[in-house]
């Protein structure tokens, strides 16, 4: 895609290709293939592939039945009515006798019906392809493949489809569909005042997004930038302090001639193995007002009276710095392990060469060891930055987003975008605002990833190691 014109032309060509192929197949195909454009499976039946034909026909009949009868789940229809409902999001306001339409389910079922329709179209296309292939087989070999052969092929050359299908289905239902659903929610007024099934909600365009930047009352807008800023500060420090801390620790443990490497490494792996809710809640209580840390600090005279680091309302930075420090405890072992792996991989010949040239220890460290580690662990650095932007456990378990700040709009002093999102949706039922935060978080993480990841060597030379 070096030339723009070229790019557009190529793009047009690319998207028109399936349609041209579709047209060609229709003109070129046998009567059976032509028929299968209208009745799925007829092409296969025409060629004597009865079972395959019946399967395709069942799909078509099932889809038609589904669209026309509009089966109801929880009193909300699927099928063609779901398309209409997706646009209106319900019309029945509801009174004592009739329940209101459930706008949330209508939105969800609209998306589901679109998904089912897309799958149907996919099956429709594959039905034509299958019939067309039978045409070709007759032309080339004089006979079509039997059902048994086709089934066997699913374990042969098309085995990858067999392997991918369950995973793809799972990902579509449990990741893609919910994500699309939440993106759509961000364009509605689905909130506390418009609970699903009690009161209708409706499309509101970009209102929720503008509220984050220019809300007339200013509540969310005033909170958004500070939370965003803290999220970025947190992600920056959490990532780089842990990263370089881990490298230093790895250098220390992997020192030449140091005994007990395994024991030291095991101690740090131990902290990875302990579930975070255990270690973080332990930390929270350990440094809390009644915990032993307070006493130690008071005994050695650093503190004059008990002070709750994580809930200190007078200065949010006390809690913020405490969180970043505790995160060192959580995160350094991970990066230590990675850096250790990199250090052990450094070719001995590099060191030899440097030593022969009379390089000092520090020079070797600066010119060979560090660049090597950094080069090899850059992908980790990126993914851990993204992970820190969306890190939930540490904030939620340590401070719950507190201390409270004035005009917080639910967001406390240590809340990240994601914990704010959680509170808005789970605790406050402000689904639309939560969804907007989710999208904004996605934008941030994707920008970071796209800019850095696509530039990194390991993406460009994805196959270089094979």
């Amino acid at each position, binding site marked *: 895609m070096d030339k723009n014109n070229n790019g557009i032309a190529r793009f047009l060509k690319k998207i028109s290709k399936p349609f041209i192929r579709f047209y060609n197949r229709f003109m070129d195909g046998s009567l059976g293939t032509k028929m299968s454009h209208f009745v799925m499976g007829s092409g296969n039946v025409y060629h004597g592939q009865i079972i395959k034909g019946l399967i395709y026909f069942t799909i078509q009949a099932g889809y038609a039945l589904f669209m026309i009868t509009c089966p109801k789940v929880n009193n909300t229809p699927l099928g063609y009515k779901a398309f209409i409902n997706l646009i209106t999001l319900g019309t029945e306001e509801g009174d004592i006798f009739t329940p209101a339409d459930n706008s949330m389910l209508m939105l969800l079922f609209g998306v589901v019906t679109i998904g089912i329709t897309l799958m149907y179209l996919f099956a429709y296309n594959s039905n034509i392809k299958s019939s067309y292939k039978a045409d070709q087989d007759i032309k080339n070999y004089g006979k079509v493949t039997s059902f048994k052969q086709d089934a066997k092929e699913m374990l042969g050359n098309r085995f990858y489809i067999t392997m991918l299908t369950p995973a793809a289905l799972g990902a579509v239902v449990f*990741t893609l569909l919910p994500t699309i659903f939440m993106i759509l929610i961000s364009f509605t007024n689905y909130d506390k005042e418009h609970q*699903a099934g009690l009161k209708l909600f409706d499309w509101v365009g970009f209102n929720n997004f503008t509220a984050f930047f220019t809300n007339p009352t200013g509540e969310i807008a005033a909170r958004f930038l500070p939370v965003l800023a803290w999220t970025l500060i947190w992600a920056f420090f959490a990532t780089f302090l842990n990263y370089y801390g881990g490298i230093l620790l790895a250098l220390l443990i992997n020192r030449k001639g140091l005994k007990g490497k395994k024991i030291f490494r095991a*101690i740090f792996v*131990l902290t990875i193995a302990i*579930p975070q809710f255990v270690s973080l809640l332990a930390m929270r209580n350990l440094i809390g007002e009644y915990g032993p840390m307070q006493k130690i600090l008071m005994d050695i005279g650093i503190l004059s009276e008990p002070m709750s680091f994580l809930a200190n309302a007078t200065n949010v930075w006390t809690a913020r710095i405490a969180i970043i420090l505790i995160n060192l*405890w959580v995160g350094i072992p991970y990066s230590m392990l*990675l850096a250790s792996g990199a250090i052990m991989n450094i070719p001995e010949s590099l060191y030899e060469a440097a030593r022969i040239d009379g390089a000092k220890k520090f020079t070797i460290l600066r010119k060979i060891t560090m660049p090597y580690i950094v080069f090899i662990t850059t992908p980790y650095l990126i993914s851990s930055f993204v992970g820190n932007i969306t890190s939930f456990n540490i904030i939620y378990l340590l401070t719950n987003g507190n201390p409270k700040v004035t005009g917080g709009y639910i967001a406390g002093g240590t809340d990240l975008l994601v914990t704010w999102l959680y509170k808005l949706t789970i605790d406050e039922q402000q689904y639309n605002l939560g969804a907007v935060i989710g999208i904004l978080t996605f934008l941030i993480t994707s920008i970071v990833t796209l800019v850095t990841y696509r530039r990194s060597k390991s993406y460009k030379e994805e196959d270089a190691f094979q």
Partner: protein
Amino acid sequence: MSDKTNTKTDTKTKFFNQTRSEKISKVGAYILLIVLSIIWLYPILWIVLNAFRTEFNADGTMVGTVVSHYWPKQFGLDNFKILFANTYFPVWFRNTLFVAIFSCILSTMLNLSVAYVMSKVKFKMRKPFMNIAIVMGLFPGFMSMIAIYYILKALGLTQTLTALILCYSAGAGLGFYVGKGFFDTVPQALIEAARIDGAGEARIFGSIILPISKPIIVYTALMSFTAPWMDFIFARVILGEQNTHLHTVAVGLYYMMYGQIVDTSRFTVFAAGCVCVALPIVALFMYLQKYYIEGSTAGSVKG
């Protein structure tokens, strides 16, 4: 570590040949590492100590709260007795084990099949699929959690452990990167040779790839088995706060302290629960440490 054997035999002579500054820096390294180890072990030991802390008030009730002295004045098993007799902990443990086993099997299968295909089968949609997977991975996981909650509700599956298993494992195919990194190192020639011998793709995967994939299978299984013991957000949303008998250990123990009412007087019982959860997980990790280190290094380093 090519010079491991050398260092062992020569340490003594080497030590005396070292210059003074080298000796100091070596001793310094040991001291620093020991101090760091103490810092890292300090909170862990504290939880363990609290699990065994059995101190009584003047009126004979147990002191369950956080106290300011690190070392307990009296040890005992009372917290464990309370944990097993008066709380739902055994049920939580059984729930978590159930979820962990099934989500481990499902996740490992989904994850590795995608990883293998993405690494070794060069089909037409491969690059687009990989890009889609990257993009989907960038959405915050629990943004979709709310939607999942309602989808499950529509399917009549909410607040069951089955739903939780599906949540943990259904999307596992998207995390194929580590596995792909492993399969990338399997020589293509091995597969080509089998193809020439006429082996079908399913057989190649079953009888050639799987037997040499033990490290990645163990790593993936370990990660997915331990996830339900550690996660508490998904479990909390899907299972609901009220259904105490359905909770997993993480949710149950969290609510024991930080439910509707923050109850810090059960801290020692909570600590006992933590020990019971962490012990098997830590043992598993330590036992499979090699695979864990291999997997996490390979996956993130090579990308």
